[in-house]
């Protein structure tokens, strides 16, 4: 009899707890969430969305996005292949499929800045974009995993699409974007930075030096791309892409990694003073 009573008690308790659990979980599931997991980076917001990893400020003016669509690999015979070829199959690329619970946890974690945005593109092989931020420095690491024919890859390139009115220039003052004379003149007047336009004939120049400055005249803040010693940086004028290319001296069986380091500064003056 006593056992029966205890059994009834436990059953009742279990039912009540189950009811509370269902109500509680259902409550949270109903909460709308922001479009993407975000993290602050100076005046910019670092986000992860179906488009990739982005640095945004006052869209549509600035939106620097890392994704697999323009990234590429260079094979031993010099063939350049897009990671995600621009054909009908690009619509089959899956990006960052997370179950709802993972998304909710990510949003909560990102509120505390403990969930650096990341993104994964999948098309048989995986292209993983991870971020790590420290102070005004951001590292965007791209890994290509399980790429067929990885052993034949000799170089890899990560790309960032820049905006039409961006000024993209190197530390030696060479301006690679095709901005008007008045904008270039105004930059000199306001910040004392004199730029010389690169010849228009070369459509994909290699950047001199290890730094590339990105200034958008419509927003505050300056981004500086810092290349590693084994990297070459190109400005692809026709497609408005900054291409960071790294040689692969020891071909990997399964994983091809490339790092992009970006610094943020509030003003161009601060950026130019940085050693």
């Amino acid at each position: 009899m006593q056992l029966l009573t205890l059994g009834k008690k436990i059953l009742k308790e279990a039912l009540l707890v189950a009811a509370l659990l269902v109500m509680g979980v259902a409550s949270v599931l109903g909460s709308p969430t922001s479009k993407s997991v975000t993290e602050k980076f100076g005046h910019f917001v670092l986000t992860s969305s179906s488009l990739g990893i982005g640095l945004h400020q006052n869209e549509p003016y600035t939106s620097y996005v890392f994704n697999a669509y323009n990234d590429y690999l260079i094979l031993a015979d010099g063939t350049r292949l897009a990671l995600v070829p621009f054909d009908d199959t690009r619509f089959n690329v899956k990006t960052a499929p997370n179950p709802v619970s993972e998304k909710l946890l990510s949003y909560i974690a990102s509120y505390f800045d403990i969930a650096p945005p990341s993104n994964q593109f999948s098309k048989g092989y995986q292209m993983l974009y991870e971020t790590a931020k420290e102070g005004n420095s951001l590292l965007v690491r791209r890994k290509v995993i399980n790429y067929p024919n990885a052993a034949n890859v000799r170089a890899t390139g990560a790309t960032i699409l820049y905006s039409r009115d961006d000024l993209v220039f190197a530390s030696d003052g060479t301006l690679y974007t095709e901005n008007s004379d008045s904008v270039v003149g105004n930059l000199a007047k306001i910040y004392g930075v004199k730029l010389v336009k690169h010849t228009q004939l070369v459509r994909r120049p290699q950047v001199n030096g290890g730094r590339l400055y990105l200034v958008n005249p419509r927003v505050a803040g300056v981004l500086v791309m810092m290349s590693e010693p084994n990297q070459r940086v190109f400005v692809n004028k026709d497609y408005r892409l900054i291409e960071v290319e790294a040689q692969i001296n020891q071909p990997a069986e399964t994983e091809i990694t490339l790092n992009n380091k970006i610094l943020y500064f509030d003003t161009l003056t601060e950026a130019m003073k940085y050693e």
Partner: protein
Amino acid sequence: MNNLILPIISGLSFYLFPILTGRAVVLFLKKGRERANILYYFAIGGLVLYGLMLLLTAVISALPLTTKPDYLRAILVVFLSLASLVNLSTFKDLKVISLKRIAPAVLTALFLSLAVVYLWRRDNPFPQLLNWDIFEHQTLVNYIKRGQLHFISSRISDTFQFDGYSTLFHALLSIPQITLGVEPFAFWWSVEYFHLFLTILASFLLAKTVTRSNLAGLLTAIISAFVFESYVIYSSLFLIPQTLAAVLSVFMLIYVLEHFKDKKYPWIPLAIIAVTIFLSHYIIGLATILTLSALIFLYQSLLMEKRLVWGLSFIILPLTVFALLTALSGFLHLDQLNSGEAALFSYTLTKKAEFAQLFYGYALYILLPVGALLSLHLKEKAVRILLLLTAVILAVVLAGIPYSLKFYVLGRYLTHLFMGLGLWMVIKSMSFRLMKVLSTSFIAVIFMAVFILNLAYWKNPLRYQGHATNLESMEIAAGRFLQEKFEASNTFLISDPSTQYVLEATSGINTQGGAYMNLDSRKIFVEALEHPYGDQFAQKLTQIKDTVNVTSPNIYLLALSGRFFEWQEAKEEDKLSLGFNVWKPYDLALNDLIFIENLKKTSRFKEVYRNESLVILQFTPGNNLGFGKFL
């Protein structure tokens, strides 16, 4: 930490000064031991201090502008010192509320409020702010600090176009700022914490009064703490007239409920409290008076003891209220109120459902019906009456009238009461204490998660340098500069509505309407900006005129901020709309700096201040180039 001490004291003083004054007045009028009633003291003290401020500002109005603040400060300090002395000298006579009775409520409110503040302010450091309405209230406080006070807010500043409340709230806000000399936004950062504490305390005590259970109080307090109505309502985290009126209303409701048993209602204190609430916010005050009157009437009446009567009332009354109000709104064209601003606050049922989902997830849809059903098993008559009143208030909230959502500022306390009661009835029926504790903790975690998701969603558009804020330090610094250099002169500042709004509050320098710049002024400004480098630009700007302070300015300032340039990019219909604001700060970009340099080339504009967020130019109107006086 030292920087926080004065703001904390001043924030507490917003409540303490009226309480001390009220108790001193009660002791003066009534000899012998008195029954401690903090709400009554606050109400009577608030009215006395308001009356004193009205009288003082009228008396000193003949004095020169520069000495008025000193006289105000001196008299207030003397008055409050006297009130404090009276309180101290009679401290031993104070009949305090039993610690055993109040400690659970106070400790719960303290713990929960600190948890909420940690989450709310983690990316909003001191003294940045997240309450857009603060600027208009601080603008009024700035006038009061200079000795200008009127019962009607729109007679003081054209930032106010619709007089939905008296200036009682602003007078009470001004007193700690005048007497303690605290930096205004530091004061606001602090006083909002104490408001949050009181909203949680009110919820706890309401549930406890109804059920006599600390667990019911705790569960209701958890819901109250972690539900933030982040559009229109703002109950717990923003201190504005409607939220102050609402929390006072809930304490008044508790006061009434406590007298149900003896059926002797202290009418004079209730009337005084009602007047205070009414002066804090006319609509919420009226709603409070109607609700409490209905509560008392229904409790006295035998009608509510009949289940059928109650059941029919529960269905018919809310439906009738909903239908009547919706029809009335269309018939009377209420969306034209407040210069058309009311239309922006008319929401469809779908939109209201979206808001509910943002504030609660699905918790409201699940816990409110469950709580309402389960609470019917409680024997207390007051519970059934409160449930009926909750349904009527929710009907008002859902009705198709402008500003109907604002009634939820009051409705939320009753809604949370029934959500809490439902949870309480489930958890209290558990046999094992450990399960009760775990279940309560689980509820707290759930509501905390909903709160964080709500905050993340709401704060997203307000990101500035990684913080979520409506105001940043550069704007405060600019305000300080303007105050020091131009406050004594008859200066008029022009900019986009949002910059005007912020700078008028931070500096005290007059603008045309702040964020509520009227349509004529907006049109003039937009037209002028079509030819900013022309000879007529400055002249055209001077056509913008304040509608309250009509004296022609001696000095004109033009503020070109990151906000201004953001506003410039907007569509014309947005620029002309009261509903469009640049809610967050922006720094100046290269194009903005180029515009400013080009404008300075015209001799009419001289730079007087600059930082990374804004540049302020002084300009002279008139046809003769190079003439005019620059400071």
